[in-house]
């Protein structure tokens, strides 16, 4: 499975990348803004995106995830320290495969990614 990381915090992004690689999946890129996320996603069409709601600058992770879902059919796992900021409308347009509140343990991340992978093959 090929995964896109959308996260503006460099240490978290690099750590997520390592965790994903350790799980035996591929990372197609790391994006820190909505624009970069969309750019990479259009070029690479990943199977899954790991999206942080808060991104650098005025960027919105929710908008990036909604775009990925609507335009490319790419599902997202939403990661955030403030999940409560997600509106019902956001959830409807993103249709996330899971929501992970920060901080989360590697075990949880692994479970969420495996779930997404299983869902993909069904």
């Amino acid at each position: 499975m090929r995964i896109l990381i959308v996260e503006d915090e460099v240490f978290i992004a690099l750590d997520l990348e390592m965790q994903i690689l350790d799980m035996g999946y591929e990372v197609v890129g790391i994006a820190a803004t909505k624009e970069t996320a969309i750019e990479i996603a259009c070029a690479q069409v990943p199977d899954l995106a790991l999206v942080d709601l808060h991104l650098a600058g005025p960027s919105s992770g929710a908008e990036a995830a909604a775009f990925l879902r609507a335009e490319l059919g790419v599902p997202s796992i939403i990661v955030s320290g403030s999940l409560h900021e997600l509106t019902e409308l956001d959830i409807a347009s993103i249709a996330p495969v899971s929501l992970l509140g920060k901080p989360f343990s590697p075990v949880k991340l692994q479970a969420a990614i495996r779930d997404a992978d299983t869902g993909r093959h069904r």
Partner: protein
Amino acid sequence: MKHLESLFDRALDAVVGMDEAGMVVAWNGAAEEMFGWSRADAMGSSMGDLIVPPQHREGHARGLERYNRTGEGPVLEQRVRITALHRDGAEFPIELSIFPMPGDGGGRIFYAFIRSMAAEESARRAQELRAREGEALLAVAQKLLDDVSLDEFTQFCLDNVCAVSGMEAGHFHVVRGRGPHACLHPTGIWHLADPRFQPVVEATSVVRFGLGEGLPGRAWQSGQLQSLDDLASSCQFVRRSVFEEVGLSRAVALPVRQGGQIHGVLEFFGTSKARLDPEILRMLETIGSQIGVAIRRKENAEHRETLRREMSHRVGNSLSVLASIYRSCSREARTKEELDEAFLGRLVAVGQANRLAVEDASESVAFPALIEEAISILPERNRITIEAPDMTVDRDSVMPLALILNELATNALKHGSSCEDSRLVVAARFGEGRDELVLEWHEHRAVPLTVPPPTPERVGFGTKLMQHMVEGRLGGSFERRLDETGFCVVMKLPRERIEALPDTDLMA
């Protein structure tokens, strides 16, 4: 009769007399003062033309004609409250009583004692306005305690002021931007007494007033209430055609200030019926200034709430960052000592970069100062040369740059090409075409090695971090070289990402 005249002249009330034809036959000194006509002017003129306001003239003529015909006069010998006309055209309230007397040459003379109620009336009105003003302020103060959003609160204030002052529309502009870029932005929050005024909302939504521009701009510049009595003929009022079309012809603009600074301008509009006399303007000024302060308070409260949420988010985020740094360091470290050193070193680096990017974000960060701060972990500063153009660093690039430089400094400390007598040069210059910034990190060995140093067999976390920051975050590229003479990294970064444009920060 002579007797009577000298008696009348001593009366405090105006005493006037009129014959059956409606012509003035008596006019005392108090009448001269009250109506502005001298006795010589008044005597022989038509009473109706002299002191009866146009809307009452017909009634006055009819009453006189009826009395002459029937001998009946229902208003005679009673206290009557009505308005009268001064020579200057001003209408004012009076109280009078009229009584008929037989005239010297047969016929009748109608005398009237008249008292001006102008002072009482204006005192009553002032009192009423003050009471309304007090109620409005109380309502606003109560609303301030309610859990409503800033927009709702502003709306409530506008509705209230319009209700109290009889204005038909009200709006709030806020000052955005700094220095010469500052201008008034419409908030889009309006009170409209009638939907037919809607076009003024659209007309206002597209204008931005600079200092001194238009009515709101003049209120902002002068710091004083500004009013216009006739918008259609005011060429400084740029939106006049739209306002004229919907029938709004009067306007008042009030600066909203707190702590000596003007943060916005309240605008109120009325039809030609709206009274903009000194009393109303004074009331608007009082309420407006109170509301201004209240709006600012609400704004601050909302800002604090945002900060609180932001804070909680940051703490959660920081813990995640910590966990990530720990995992990354632990993956690489071969011994506990290595882990300690890597983890704690990186923690300090993140803390430092964070301080530069977040805490000092209110002030701009100069490039040389950023370099200085980011490599402050290196000892022996006399062997370090920093050369960089004195430009302000874009806020979004502060953190990446600080982390990159810190990573390089940590590396230099660890791998001691910075050992005795080596020199470090950190130099930034504009590349060809000046749209590129070349940032060089050069560690020179005082004594070159006899053999080239070994190439690291794997890509370390530091290198990955550099790559992510330089390429991913700053949109640049970098090259590194490790040889006998030392270690060198050359980064090519797009200038537009690094350099802050003046005063763009608050315009968003």
